[in-house]
Each structure stands twice: as C-alpha cells, then as structure tokens.
C-alpha cells in the first residue's frame, strides 16, 4: 500500500515537474531572476567579457526584459545554447525566453509550438570567403566546400540556394559558431555561411578581418527575434512590448541619459508619458510596475543606443543600420503605439 502511494506521489511529482508552467511571469518573479537562452559566444550579440559579464545586442534585450519584470537588469541567468539544443531547452522550460539570433519561421511558430513576439534584427543569409580565393559572387561557388551550423535555417536555405542555381557544394556540418570559425580559418572549408550579422560578428574576431569578404548575395530572409513558449500569452506580451519600448523610445528621443528626467514629470508628448508611466496605466495592464519602461531604458538605453554600442558602425562588428533603421528613416523598425 505504502509503495503504491509512493509510486503515485512520484508520478504526480513527475507530472508537475514536467509541465513547463504556463505562468512564466510568476515563475520569474518567484525566482528573482530571468533565465535567458543565449549564444555560446558571438561577438557583439552575446559573449561574456573578461570578467564573465555577458554583453551584446541580444544580451541587452535579456537585461531589458529582466528590468521590466524584476526592476534589475543584472538579474539574468544566461544559459548558453547551441543551435541544436535551443528550442528543446525553451520548450522544456529550461529558459524563460530565448534570445539567440533565432529566425522567426512558419514551422517554428506553429509546429514547434513557439512564439516570436517581436523582431529585433532583420537579417539575411550570406557567404564569407577568404579574399585570396578571388570570388566575387556566390554564383561562382560551384564545387565549393561550405561550413554550416546544423539545426539552423541556414542549412535549409543553403540547400535551396545551390539547388535553385544548379550548382553543387560539399557541406561540412559544424555544431557551433566557434567550431565553424576554426574549420574555416584552417581552410577545411572554402566558405562560411550564416546570417550576415553573424558573419560580420565572426569576422570581427579574426586576426586579419580584411582578408575575408562577405559576398553581395543575400539568399534568405532572417527576421531574428526573441522566442517564448506558445500558449503563455501574458509572458509573450511582456517580451513583445519590452522590445517595442526600446524601439519606440528611439523614435521619441528617449535615451538612457534623459529617461530619468523625462519620467520625473509628465511632458508635452502624451505618447512618451504613457510609455514612461507618468500618464495612464499601461504597466498594470501587463502586470508590471507603472515605470517598467523607465527601468528598461535605464539599463542600456533605447534600441538605437544598444545597436550602436554593440554592433554599430563604430564597433569592430561594424554593421550599418540598413533594414534595422527606424521606419521614419526608411527602415523596418516600427515601435507599436503605446496607448
């Protein structure tokens, strides 16, 4: 009898432990920290610095979410994930949110039961080759050996692109960006292919970045953004509107430097007031404090500031805003209306 009870208890325990709790927000608050699935190390996007502090473009979004929910941008536990393990880890509840250069696709959104609440970088897949190879277009890559990270959209796009153009290639599968970089630099593959932002970030860490060129072809659409589990809409809303707050703040000129001042008293701009919580009750509607966006913007500033500090043209990665400029500047970054 006692044995049956014991087994029953075990099964119930297994059941409850197994279900990724639907209320991620409560979990995060109870835990006091946000578990953020991140890269294993991609300069400019997510990498630990010399002191072990994670920093980068994706890292800043994790910190912004932590600031919105917990009021502390440092209350983040980073969980490095490979491209192969990331979605399983998210689905199993090992991380609360995944910010890892992940492309929003139909299959991932539906069949994998994930949600991509927002896009924080519009990207596309490209090719990098050593300058010495003398290749100037992807169409000349017939017969080339190509390093690809497995478990990515990259490997599927690659197969499609070469088949559509009727040229052949030899794929060399690698598990991580670091492995791909090592193989590429050793010359075990002629070409390295991934999202162009990833290529630029990888190249920035080379000893002689100038010896490598990124070919002009962009062979896919890669809208990259944070991912959460499908079904927890309240949590999805928080991730979505945190991202939008960063983007909208840039549009309205709210920066890390002036946010405290703007939040001190209502300004002439009602949109800014609602964003910063000096007017209306937007925070309460998603279960956060009224000044949640102030905390978000106090961590690393708005979208534009985060971009410039980590991957912008003044950094080693050196990416232009391009598609990721504000819509007012002809880009695709369009912060939702805060009302």
């Amino acid at each position, binding site marked *: 009898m006692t044995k049956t009870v014991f087994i029953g208890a*075990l099964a119930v325990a297994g059941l409850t432990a197994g279900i*990724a709790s639907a209320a991620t927000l409560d979990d995060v608050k109870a835990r006091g920290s946000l578990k953020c699935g991140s890269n294993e190390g991609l300069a400019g996007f997510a990498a630990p610095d010399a002191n072990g502090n994670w920093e980068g473009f994706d890292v800043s979004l994790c910190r912004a979410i932590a600031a919105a929910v917990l009021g502390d941008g440092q209350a983040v536990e980073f969980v490095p994930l490979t*491209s192969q393990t990331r979605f399983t880890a998210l689905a199993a509840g090992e991380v609360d949110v995944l910010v890892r250069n992940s492309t929003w696709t139909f299959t991932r959104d539906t069949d994998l*039961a994930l949600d991509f609440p927002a896009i924080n970088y519009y990207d596309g897949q490209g090719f990098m080759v050593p300058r010495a190879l003398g290749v100037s277009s992807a169409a000349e890559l*017939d017969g*080339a050996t190509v390093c690809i990270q*497995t478990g990515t959209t990259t490997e599927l796009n690659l197969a499609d692109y070469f088949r559509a153009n009727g040229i052949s290639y030899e794929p060399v599968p690698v598990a991580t960006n670091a492995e791909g970089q090592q193989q590429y630099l050793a010359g*075990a593959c002629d070409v390295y292919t991934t999202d162009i932002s990833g290529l630029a970030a990888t190249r920035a860490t080379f000893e002689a970045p100038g010896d490598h060129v990124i070919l002009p072809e962009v062979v896919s659409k890669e809208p990259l953004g944070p991912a959460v589990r499908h079904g927890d809409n309240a949590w999805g809303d928080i991730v979505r509107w945190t991202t939008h707050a960063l983007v909208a703040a840039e549009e309205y000129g709210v920066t890390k430097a002036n946010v405290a001042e703007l939040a001190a008293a209502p300004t002439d701009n009602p949109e800014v007031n609602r964003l910063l919580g000096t007017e209306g009750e937007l925070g309460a509607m998603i279960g956060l404090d009224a000044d949640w966006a102030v905390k978000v913007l106090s961590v690393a500033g708005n979208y534009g500031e985060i971009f410039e500090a980590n991957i912008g043209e003044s950094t080693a990665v050196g990416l232009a805003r391009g598609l990721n400029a504000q819509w007012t500047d002809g880009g695709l970054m369009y912060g939702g209306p805060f009302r």
Partner: protein
Amino acid sequence: MADISDHPRETFRISMLLYDARYRSLTIQVVAAMLIMLFLAQLVDNTVTNLAVLGKDISFSFLWSTAGYDINQQIIPFTSQDTHARAALVGILNTLLVAVLGCILATVIGVFAGVLRLSKNWLVARVMTFYVECMRNTPLLIWILIVFAVMTEATPQPRDFREGGTAAMVFADSVAVTNRGVFIPRPIWADGSGIVVAFLILSIIGIFVLRYVARKRQEDTGQQLPVLRLSLAMLIVPVTLAFFAVGRPITLEYPELGGFNFEGGLQVRNSFIALWLALSLYTSAFIAEIVRSGILAVSKGQTEAAFALGMQPNRTMQLIILPQALRVIIPPLISQFLNLTKNSSLALAVGYMDARSTLGGITVNQTGRELEGILLLGIFYLITSLIISSAMNFYNSGVKLKER
C-alpha cells in the same frame, strides 16, 4: 508417500499468500510486476499529457516529408528533396560503414597488440603495455578530437597543391592528403567488369575448397600442401588473366585539382577517418587485453605438450593455443563490437553524418520531433546490437567447447 496423504488437505486461505513460504515469492513477483507496469504506464501517460500541454502530438509522419538538407557522405544517392526517412537511411548506412570497418581494424590491431604484449622481447612488450594503457584510460571523445585536429590542422589545404604550392600528391600522383580528407583513385566499372568480379568470387570459393582438401589430406596421410602459396596463386592468376582477356574493363579515375577542391577520385573525409581510426585504436586496446587473457587462460601444459611432440612454436599457437583461447576470447569480444557500434554515435563531434547526426540530429532539430526521432534512433541501435550479438553467438557456438 503414504505419510503425505495422511495429512488432512489444507484449505487455501488468503493470508497464506503472505505467510506461506510456498506462495510468498509468487506474491512478491506479481506485486512487483504490477508496480513496474503501473510505473511504465504512468511514464507513457505522463509524456503524452505533457506533450499535449506543450501543444505537441506524437506522430511519425515527418519521416515522409522533404528533408531539405544535404548530406556530404552518401552511400546511396541523396538530395535535399528526398524524405527524412531516406536521410535516416543514409545516416544508418554511414553508421554501419564505420562500425564494420572499425570492428575489422580494431580486431586486427587488438590481436597484434595482445599477442605482442606477451612477447619475450622486453621492449616490444613494454611498448604494447604503454599503448594499451594509454588508449584504455583516456576518453574516446578525446581521441576522436585529437585525430580530427591532426587531420585538419596538420595537413595542407587543396589550394597548396597548385603550381608552386607547398604540397604534393603521393603514390605517383594518385593520392592527395588534404585537410578535407584523403582523395584516392576510384575504380570505374565498364562493361565486362562483371566477368572479372565473377572470377574473383570463384577463386575465393576455390581457395576454401583447397583448404578443405589440404586439411583432409593432412588428416589422412599426414602430408602438407603449400596452402598459402597455392591460395595466393589462385587468387591472383585467374583474375589477372580474365582482366586482360576481357580488355581491361576496370580503370581508375584519379583525383585532380579543380576550382576549389580535388575533383574525381574518391574522397575519404576527415570526419570519417578521425572517427574510424579513433574508434579502432580505442577498442583495439580492450581487444588486446581480451586476447592476452584468452591466451594466458590456456594452460602452459598445452604448450609444453605440443613442444614435446616436436611442434613448431607458430604451429603450436595456430593449432593448439588459439583454438582454445578463442573460447575465452569470443564472448567479451562481442561486447567490444557492440561498444564500438554504439560509440560511433560520437560522430557528431566531428560532423560525421551517421544515424545520430541525421535522424537524431538535423531531422529532430528541423522537425521538432525529439521524442519520435530519438525513439527511432534507440530502436535502430537496439536492433543493430541484437543482430551483431546473435551473429557472434552463432560463431561462438561453433568454436566453443563441445562437451560430449
């Protein structure tokens, strides 16, 4: 007898299930079986419920959808438009390839190392001890990565083979060792190749017949035939004659430097070489120990008796020691073969596209069918292991001690 029937027949009471030693063990077994079933049922139910909560069902239909990715090493043709099932098959064949070649190489090296470790030559015995201990006491993954690192970092790139480059092909310009693999000549089979192959097969059958005849003759008359020389002649002469008679149907295609890489010939990829060598070297150390203990298990008296009869040392080994040692060697050898096959799933570390990397890797990843994919992978390894062990058990029943 009468004594027993004198007792009044006891009536069965429920409490006897617990207190009567005759029934107790049965009771315990039934209860344990029920608990295990309950636990398994819970586990399955739990999994299904949790998947449902995540919005996922269990379905194997993904196997028939387009894979969408490419695989470099293919024994059967494969394109990205083929199904996931076919991708799994390509991976399975790659696993079997490395497992079979690994078992063969591991056995050869293992037998050598095991026998040499017993050598009377101090240096040889010590070197072999060193080899065995080094291999056995380091994780396999390290060896795979070491061999792979050597293969990719210490070998030249294809472009170094260009005019004025630092590297050159070996074996009369027929083999190129590069950091992408070793390129070797590939046989091209033209019309009439079948005849040559048929001759080869006939010769091999002939050799077995010859051995049988020679053995019979020795048992009957005591005379020995020069079996080795005759076998070699039978293997080479007819095939060569047939080859030229049909007009040299089999030619070799040599690898040649193309735009980015060597083209033509056969590419033996570094990932394959690294996995194959590391698996073989690692397992050979265990096999060496098995062989050594097998030989030591044959009592010294057997050798002495053979010497007393005037037998040569090598024939003593061949006819007296090894047949007896095999009985001790085969059973643990089976488990080494099983280990090697299962260890081949470390292929992932060097990007070798085995069943783990295709079915259990990319397919699982692109379709999000972790449970189904890993389940199928488990079933594949289970079936393979069962086949290997039943085949080896069959062989074992041939060599094992027949008690009459």
